Each structure stands twice: as structure tokens, then as C-alpha cells.
């Protein structure tokens, strides 16, 4: 049934339909509405699990760590400084192989204070061992919450579902909400092999010698690699059941395109409008949206690119001293692929609008550029 939902409400409905057993939250703009919606559902008896209001984001993740270790399906949402405050426990949760699903509503980090969308919060958790998926519509937010539980519980790694602050989190659009029966047929209950159980006591997370530590990390690497396949397989299965398929990449009008915008998040939707406008001018434009950031879809990207291709990477994030993060990751994944050039554009930091016009300008600049003159990052903005 179609309903008009904000991105935050779509996330909460996803957690509800996934029969989340333990949700823990601490408010932060622009993610607070996720818990407002869950609290409202809970008060009406419509939310299946427990909801705990914690005293900080660090405590949120600690509580989820415990609940997930005890075998519960667990969920939370946060943003920006809230996510940064969880950082220590993000590593712990991933190392403990707990399939927690968390919404991150992208928001810039201070100083100076800023409330608006910027991917640097989630991307700076790159090395924690969490999977990360970036959504472009409110429908995709709901669908990705459901798929993320399935993928996370298969590879036993936590998963972050990322959406743009305000641009998705507070915007309203029609979302097809599946029935509980349909979701139940897609997502079985979480039944971990090992869990905290007083009748069968075992130790979790104790001191590990270097040999075992390395081996455990190597297993994590293997499971991250398996996650690349899992994202594709679960995305296809979701499509068969619900009519909306997903993968690691989302290519739009790319089949004959040589210069391609590479985008993520809601910008991936706006970029389709920019590609349509460029095509109307007779230009062979395409848009490649990266849904998956961790695991990084290196295999899928190497299969996608062709010699002579120019990739115009749009980064709403910045790693000081290096450049846009998607651009850097793309270069690393494609190296030493000859004949493919990666052009990084940093824009829209702190919520600056990434408009149809700006995306066309970026595409045209890259289409005109020669590979010998690639700077580390070009900074652009819409003058309005």
C-alpha cells in the first residue's frame, strides 16, 4: 500500500516490518524522527520489539551490543556527532560479528555547527567493519532496511543504511509499504549459531593472541567479500518478491556513455534528471550510482568500466589532505586499469544544494578534460 512517508518514517516502518526485537535510541537532528515514529508506534501497540531511550549514543551501541549478543534483532538510528560518539563501539560490534542494522542520516560534523547533509560522518566510519549502503529515495530507505537485516544476518556483519539529512530524511514522497506477510516471507527470524545463554555459558570477546586475531580478521575479510555477492543476490530476490531490484551499483543510461557521473545518495536521483537534460542536448551522458560503499564494489566496478571512460565523481564529503572519498576509493579499486580516468569533484558540503545544473556543469567539464590535467579534487558549488 502506498503511503506518503519521510525518509525517517520509511526507516522506522522498515524496522517495524523487520520485527526488530530491540531498538535503542538517543535523539539527534536530523535522525530524531526515526525514534519519534517508533515511540508513537510502540504507544499504539504497533511496534513489535522493545524500545529503550539511552543516555548517549555510546550507550546506545553498548546496549545493542548486549541485545544482539543475546540473539535479538537490533536497530538504531543516528547522525553526525552521534555516530562519531559511537565510534569505539562500532569497531567492537563489527569485530564481535553482530548483525546490527543502523540508520545514519548524513549530517556535517562541526566545527562550525551545521545541521545539513554531508557524507563525511558515515565515511569516516569506513574502517570500522560496518557495511554501508547509500539510498537515493525514501522507498529505497525502507527496502534497504529490510535487505540489510537479511544480508547482515547472512554474513554476520553490522550494516549502516545511509540517507541524506533533510533531502531524504525530512522530504515526503509516496512509498510502497509491503504487508507484514510479504516481509515475513522475505525475512525469516534471526537465529544466530552462538548467543548469550545462561544454560550454555560461553565467553565472548576475551583476550586473543596475535595468530587468532589475524585469523579472525581474515575471516571478516572473507565475509566482507561474500557480502558483495550477498548484496546482489538479496537485491535480486527482493526484486522477485516486491518488483524493485537492487544491487551494488545502479547504472542509468550508461550503455553508450563514455563520460559518466558517479554519484551516491539522493544526488544519484537528481543526477538522473541531469543525465536526461544532457541527453536532450544530444550528449552521451550516463549516471552510475554507488549503493554499496562497504564492501566497496570493486569487482562490479572493474566489470563496469571500459577503456576510454571518464568518471566524474561527485563527492559530498572531504578527507582533508586527500580529496573526495568516493573518488579516492574508486581510483584504488580501478588501479592499474589503463584508459579510465577518474575526475574528483567536491561539492555540497554542509548541505549545499547539488543541483541539476551543477551536475550538468561537472559532466561537461569532465567531458572536455584531458586525462593529463586531473587535479586531486575540484571544488565547485551552485552559485544560488
Amino acid at each position, binding site marked *: 500500500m*502506498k*503511503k*506518503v512517508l519521510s525518509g525517517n518514517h520509511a526507516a522506522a516502518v522498515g524496522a517495524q516490518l523487520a520485527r526488530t526485537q530491540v531498538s535503542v535510541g538517543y535523539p539527534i537532528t*536530523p535522525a530524531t524522527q526515526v525514534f519519534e515514529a517508533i515511540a508513537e508506534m510502540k504507544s499504539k501497540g504497533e511496534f513489535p520489539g522493545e524500545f529503550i531511550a539511552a543516555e548517549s549514543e555510546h550507550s546506545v551501541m553498548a546496549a545493542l551490543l548486549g541485545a544482539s549478543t543475546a540473539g535479538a534483532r537490533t536497530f538504531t538510528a543516528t547522525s553526525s556527532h552521534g555516530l562519531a560518539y559511537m565510534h569505539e563501539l562500532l569497531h567492537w560490534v563489527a569485530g564481535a560479528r553482530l548483525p546490527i542494522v543502523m540508520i545514519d542520516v548524513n549530517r556535517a560534523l562541526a566545527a562550525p555547527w551545521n*545541521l545539513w547533509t554531508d557524507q563525511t560522518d558515515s565515511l569516516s566510519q569506513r574502517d570500522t567493519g560496518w557495511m554501508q549502503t547509500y539510498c537515493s529515495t525514501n522507498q529505497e530507505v525502507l527496502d534497504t532496511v529490510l535487505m540489510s537485516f537479511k544480508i547482515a544476518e547472512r554474513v554476520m556483519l553490522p550494516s549502516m543504511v545511509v540517507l*541524506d539529512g*533533510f*533531502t*531524504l530524511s*525530512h*522530504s*515526503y*514522497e*509516496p512509498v510502497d509499504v509491503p504487508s507484514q506477510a510479504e516481509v515475513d516471507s522475505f525475512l525469516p527470524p534471526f537465529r544466530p549459531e552462538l548467543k548469550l545463554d545462561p544454560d550454555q555459558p560461553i565467553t565472548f570477546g576475551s583476550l586473543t593472541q596475535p595468530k587468532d586475531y589475524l585469523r579472525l580478521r581474515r575471516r571478516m575479510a572473507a565475509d566482507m567479500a561474500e557480502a558483495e555477492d550477498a548484496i546482489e543476490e538479496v537485491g535480486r530476490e527482493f526484486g522477485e518478491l516486491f518488483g524493485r531490484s537492487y544491487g551494488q551499483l545502479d547504472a542509468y543510461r550508461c550503455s553508450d556513455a563514455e563520460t559518466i557521473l558517479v554519484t551516491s545518495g*539522493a*544526488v544519484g*536521483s*537528481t543526477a*538522473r*534528471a541531469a543525465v*536526461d537534460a544532457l541527453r536532450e542536448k544530444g550528449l552521451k551522458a550516463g549516471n552510475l550510482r554507488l549503493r554499496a560503499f562497504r564492501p566497496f564494489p570493486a569487482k562490479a566496478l572493474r566489470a563496469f568500466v571500459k577503456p576510454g571512460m571518464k568518471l566524474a565523481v561527485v563527492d559530498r564529503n572531504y578527507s582533508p589532505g586527500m580529496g573526495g572519498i568516493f573518488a579516492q576509493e574508486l581510483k584504488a579499486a580501478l588501479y592499474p586499469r589503463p584508459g579510465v580516468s577518474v575526475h574528483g569533484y567536491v561539492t555540497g558540503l554542509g548541505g549545499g*544544494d*547539488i*543541483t*541539476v545544473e551543477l551536475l550538468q556543469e561537472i559532466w561537461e567539464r569532465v567531458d572536455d578534460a584531458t586525462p593529463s590535467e586531473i587535479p586531486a579534487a575540484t571544488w565547485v558549488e551552485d552559485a*544560488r
Partner: protein
Amino acid sequence: MLEIRFHGRGGQGTVLAAKIIADAVLRQGEKQCLAIPEFGVERRGAPVMAYARVSEKPILARTKIYAPDALVVLDPTLYASDILKGLKPGGTVLTNGGPEDVARLTKRFPGQKFLAVPAHAIALELKLGSASSPIVNTAMCGAACAVFGLCSLAALLECVREAVPVKADANVEAARRAFEAAREVLLAAS
């Protein structure tokens, strides 16, 4: 594609108005609608904007609207600032006010089409908000649906009833009265 920009003040329900319109367009089932509030640090009384795109095709652009086809002005004191910025030539401005406001605004902003509905008076009559700051959002939704042909009155009224936190009957009545007032204004203008 019809692109509408809403101008109001914090506390008037500007954002909810854009959401109600998206709901009503979905319920009508003929078009797509994307409602985008522009958020800052919310303060009662501060200028607030929201955007709505309405289209027969899927809506891809998730940006602010810089060159709207139309404006919906909930609070006429906002004309003191440059709220007509970017409005397309010949664009429609649906304003909270009366015929005297239309005459004054047409003179001040030639080339734009002004339509006024007495949302302030309707809200006062129905005791929505307080006498000093009546809540005009549901009335302006009713007027916008009539002026831009967004949805049927029945679809709108259902959405208003579901969306408002309090005084459902009075809000539904405000939307209905403003919808009818806007239709009369349109007839008179044509």
C-alpha cells in the same frame, strides 16, 4: 512538472501544508508529488520555506526550487523580503489576503498573477490558532488544491483530517471553505 514554493513562518504549519498536498496528490492517484521542507534551526516566527514538485512522471530532482511556477504565501508580512525571487514570469502567487491585497501586490509586482483567499479570516472564524497568530495552513492547502488543480476536494479533506494533530473538524472545514473561496476567485479572474 509544476513547482510550487511555500512561504510561511515557523509555527504556522508550512511544512505540514506541503506534506498534506503530497498526501492528497497520492490519494488522487494521477500524479507524483515530492514535498521538500527547507529546515534551519526552527524558531517560532522565523521565515520558513517548503517546496513541492507535482508531475505526471517520476520526480528525480531532489533539490530546492529556484524558479518556481507558483508561490503559496501563508503570511503576507513576508512580502517585506524578496520572496518573489526566481518566480517565473507570469507565475501565480496564491496569497493569504483579500481583493485589496491583490490590487496592491499587482501594482508592486507587475507581470505576476496574484490570487487571494481570506485564510486568516477563515482560521479566525474557526478558532484555529490564536487571534494574534491564526493557523492558516489547512485553509491555504484547500486554496492551493483548487487553484493548481492538484486533487479533488474529497481527497484533500481526508488528508487534512488524518494529518492535523488537533481540531480535525475545524481544519477540514477551513480547507473546504478556502477551496470554495479559491474557486470563486478563479471564476472571477477568468
